[in-house]
């Protein structure tokens, strides 16, 4: 729906990294490199960003 504020497992704040991650990967950068440069080291935090599907724009009109 919308990117979680924190990592489910460890509690690191990851919500703020998503928009930059999306912008940079869409511009062709490798996800691995983007995540490293954003300081998201653990795989628990990485999977939240990598596997996220942003559906909020599709739901928003029916709010």
């Amino acid at each position, binding site marked *: 729906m919308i990117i979680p504020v924190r990592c489910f497992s460890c509690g690191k704040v990851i919500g*703020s990294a998503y928009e*930059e991650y999306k912008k940079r990967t869409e511009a062709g950068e490798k996800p691995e490199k983007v995540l490293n440069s954003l300081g998201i080291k653990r795989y628990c935090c990485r999977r939240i960003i990598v596997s996220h599907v942003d559906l909020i724009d599709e739901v*928003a009109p029916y709010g």
Partner: protein
Amino acid sequence: MKIKIMELKDDSMRFLIEDSTPSFVNMLRRTLLNDVPKMAIEDVEFHLGPIRHEGNDYESISPLFDEIIAHRLGMLPIPTDLDLFTFMDKCKCGGVGCPSCTIKYMINKTGPCTIYSRDLEVVKGWLPGDEKLMEDKFKIKDENIPIVKLTDRQALMIYATAQLGTGKKHAKWQAVSGVGYKYYPEIKINTEKCDGCGRCVKSCPKNILAFKGKKVEIKDIEKCSLCSSCEEICPSGAIKVKGDDSKFIFRFETDGSMTARSAMGAALKTLGEKCREFEEKIKEI
């Protein structure tokens, strides 16, 4: 006990403890997780019904349920100064909520827009002292956390109250993440038995083994994760991996609500208080 700081950043810390025990470092880990007080949003009031703004009509509606928005607000890292705030139930106001135990925030936005953590404003005049200074001090430092998205004719008007708590009650009051320690690695290579086949060098997932001439050498022992894959693969049994249970590499990071140094300070303070309380209880017997 000897302590050596290996890395100290604003929001993370890594250090070496020597001459200690697993139970002591684990006590430190648990205190950091459970007993470091920090501010987090606990109460959220939503404005209901129509909102009129600059001649346009908006509805107090958003794509997410109010409960979800409240939960997301709770997760935000609220800047915490432990000298300025006390627990609500121990406050002189008697738990009603005053500027020395709570921070009041507000959001007032109309769609279409995305509401970010930076849109939370400290309610004017709530905290004593210079308004601008307080606003800067308690504005959420991590500005780009999306909270909710609004479309046309949707609006959000919220009052949120942050209070002090500890991780014991809810994870939103957990000031640190990734707290952990490992035994200091020891790799022993028996040069007599080693035939230089190089399987250990290839099998190491952290690439800390290398050849120096015909001998296997350890490059960076601190990177070793004690997985023992070199020990398992070695056909001649020349390599042994062990962790030193009196020497630890300890690390943690904060969520951004306080510095790593002040989180550690707060943890040690509560640990001290608990030990003192225990001592007094024992004396009474």
